[in-house]
């Protein structure tokens, strides 16, 4: 089973990388860019057939390791949810 984990900075936490990208994009002529936030996207393959169990395990991984609760939020999506 494939799980997607999204990790992004909490709202309000400054994102230097996103800010730099925003500036670079505008400099390249993409003036319509208002903001960029950079996050991580982990694709995890699990030896687990049950969607709910897989989801719960992935959430546990986020709690235990993948996200830093001081600055980051996470979201878990099962493959099929991503069209």
């Amino acid at each position, binding site marked *: 089973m494939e799980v997607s984990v999204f990790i992004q900075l909490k709202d309000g936490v400054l994102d230097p*990388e996103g800010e730099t990208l925003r500036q670079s994009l505008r400099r390249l002529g993409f003036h319509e860019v208002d903001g960029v936030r950079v996050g991580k996207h982990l694709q995890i393959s699990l030896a687990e057939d049950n969607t709910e169990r897989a989801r719960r395990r992935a959430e546990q991984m986020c709690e235990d390791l993948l996200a830093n609760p*001081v600055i980051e939020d996470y979201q878990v999506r099962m493959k099929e949810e991503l069209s």
Partner: protein
Amino acid sequence: MRGSASAASGRAADSQSPMSFAVVVFPGSNCDRDCYHVIREVLRRPVCYVAHAEPQIPDVDCVIIPGGFSYGDYLRAGALAARSPVMGAIRDFAAGGGLVLGICNGFQILCETGLLPGALMVNTALQFICRWVHMRIEDVNTPFTRDCKPNQVLRMPIAHYEGNFRPPPEQGTGSAEAEDLFCGRIVGRYCSPGGEVSDNSNPNGSWSSVAAVSNREGNVLGMMPHPERCSEHMLKGSDGLYIFRSLVQWWEEDGYE
């Protein structure tokens, strides 16, 4: 604070042996040998290495978590190292008042472990920065800084990609009150050679120019500058010795109480 550092002092009281150190080695640590060298050859104190997989730490008075790229700094700097067995032992050691010094990656690991508040994000310039900086000592009442004068300026090198300190979110507004609320203690701030703290002298965008932080009790310190890189005259500076000497002095004098 002295009271809470009693585990270390308890040991010191009943033995006359010199203050002893352990340097933790994670896969990817790369300042471990440098710290070891300073303790052994400059401070001339007993020192040993402890591997990341050890569930226990030896009977020492201070644990140093050195700089480097533990686990390649993959995911987040310090995140993977923070989950290794030895950190459980260090947590207990710290809870008992033991002295823990995290330098650079060590600081990142301590934040990830929760032994220090906050997080270290990527430098605002999105570049690794290796250069000399100045750090003003904001708090001389810790075992790591007691040899310094209030507001003393130390000249030290930094070398990191993720040194941009963020306090826990509820304290992150940047106001004076927020700093009061900050659940750790700010021990050092980046500053000009003259001791002035401003954006100009902040190399990485750190909140409130924070360069070094300790826990409330003062027995766990994280700092981005590398004292082990400036503890010998030959290396163009020896201000790092203020940190190491503070430790030894604290242990030899106050630690006995």
